[in-house]
């Protein structure tokens, strides 16, 4: 337990240091005058003057020696100061909190929906391995895994927003706006969870104790429900937690596609505008969330499976 905790914590700190250094290096290795670019982003391309750039340079401390700037940079991050957005001038923490809410909603909805799809499909596939339903579900999973999430999204928009005209194609005002992005995310995730559910069911059903339960006269469904379901749940639950990390991968592209104002959208927009404090903050938040979810998955795994607990203890 403690070892898992220490490992993930170390990983989170290393991520933060690497990310901070990467961002710092990027700011200073980039071609072009940073102060001028910031001024252009802040005041518009036409109204950039040398004075404006100088003012930005002084305000943001861009005129100090490099080592000093790096020290300030790292110290600021260690204190949890993320600074202000170079573009909007608002505190980075405020921007992140605003956008993170949307991402959490989308991520949770997509993740839940993916299991609404994957659990029944995986169950029916696993109950008759090699049957037509199994092959169909397997084929569907392979096909979905070969589609980048934005292609899934474009397909859904074409059918539901342009063809049937029953859902809005982009934006975020109402609940209906959530449906297509969440469904896109869910389908991309289900590509990986369908086979996991299916394999878990097949494995649990092949166990000797299940054969015994059938021999003593229980029906197939009752035997599985009472003796197999819990065993089948272990890999599925572990994977479901791990898969939350895939949500992080998917949401950047999906939010951009649907113009959904979450963290991914913020990250991409600030990358385009080279708004380094926001990039850095968003990267840190995503990296920390990743470490946390991994930690939660580790702990859940230990809790679910007593066999592993014994292994983990020295």
């Amino acid at each position: 337990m403690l070892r898992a905790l220490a490992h993930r914590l170390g990983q989170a700190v290393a991520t933060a240091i690497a990310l901070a250094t990467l961002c710092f290096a990027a700011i200073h290795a980039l071609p072009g005058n940073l102060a001028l670019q910031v001024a252009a982003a802040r005041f518009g391309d036409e109204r950039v003057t040398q004075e404006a750039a100088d003012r930005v340079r002084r305000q943001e401390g861009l005129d100090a020696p490099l080592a000093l700037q790096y020290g300030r940079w790292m110290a600021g991050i260690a204190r949890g100061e993320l600074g202000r957005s170079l573009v909007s001038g608002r505190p980075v923490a405020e921007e992140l909190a605003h956008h993170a809410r949307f991402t959490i909603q989308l991520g949770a909805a997509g993740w839940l929906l993916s299991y609404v799809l994957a659990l029944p499909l995986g169950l029916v596939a696993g109950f008759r391995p090699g049957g037509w339903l199994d092959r169909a579900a397997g084929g569907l999973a392979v096909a979905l895994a070969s589609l980048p999430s934005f292609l899934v999204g474009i397909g859904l928009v074409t059918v539901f927003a342009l063809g049937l005209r029953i859902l809005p194609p982009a934006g975020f005002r109402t609940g209906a706006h959530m449906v297509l992005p969440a469904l896109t995310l869910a389908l991309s995730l289900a590509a990986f969870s369908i086979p996991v559910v299916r394999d878990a069911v097949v494995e649990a059903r092949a166990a000797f104790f299940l054969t015994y339960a059938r021999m003593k006269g229980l029906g197939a469904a009752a035997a599985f429900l009472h003796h197999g379901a819990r065993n089948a749940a272990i890999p599925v639950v572990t994977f479901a937690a791990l898969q939350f990390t895939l949500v992080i991968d998917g949401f950047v592209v999906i939010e951009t596609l649907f113009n959904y104002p979450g963290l991914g959208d913020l990250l991409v927009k600030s990358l385009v505008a080279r708004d380094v404090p926001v990039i850095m903050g968003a990267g840190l938040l995503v990296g920390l969330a990743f470490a946390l979810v991994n930690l939660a998955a580790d702990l859940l795994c230990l809790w679910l499976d007593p066999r592993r607990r014994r292994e983990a203890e020295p």
Partner: protein
Amino acid sequence: MRIAPPRRAAGLAAAIAALACLGPLAAPMNPLEQDLMRVMEPPGARHWLGTDHVGRDVLSRVLAGAPYSLGLALLSVGMSASTGTLLGLVAANSGAAGRAVVMRLADLVLAFPGLLLALLLSGLFGGGVLPMLAGLHLAMWPQYARMADATATSTLREGHVEAARLAGFPEWIILLRHVLPRVLRTLAPLAILGTGQAIMSIAALGFLGLGLRPPTPEWGAMISDLLPFLAEGVVQVAAPCAAIFATVLALSLAGRSLAGSSMPPRVR
């Protein structure tokens, strides 16, 4: 007739490499030439897949995009697999300290979720081919290094390696003759699946506007370019989408049959 999975996979890899090289030559028209009198034309005899929003031939653009989407994916996987193999062999062959250095570096990279590292590098260093390749390379080498290290370590303990050592062969001959072939064989399915992943990553970066930029006919960038015109031309958007889907699907089927399993690999 059944073809053995390794042959099939090798054949497919060759076909995709050939497509990447020959695609642009097969393009019937200039993929960059605009014709503003013929924008968003539906598919017809002159333009088989129609024209895009500035009148460029979509078929030519999809074919001309092959070296960007496929070639760069093959290149980035080749680079990552080479780095990973090299570092994995070094780790397996150089005591606890050497392995710790390599594996901690791998852990550091794996602490970044999926696309994020490539996204940050491409985005922060201004997009284009080099930052994108560097980002993909950086993000992908650890999985190959881990696999190479695990395979090499177990191979080094085997009887035939011990025999070669006792027969007086120098360490580098043993690595080259006995360990490397085994490592490459275990890495092959991973590399084939990885090429599909890389195609998707390159397309995603292009789509986000952080990879290759228009007017380069890279498939992801093409899609994001054409997306506002989806209602007028579904075929034009579907063409690069289908190209991505077909190549990734072929690669993942080949990778899976080579790995001896019909199911997607579990994540990490």
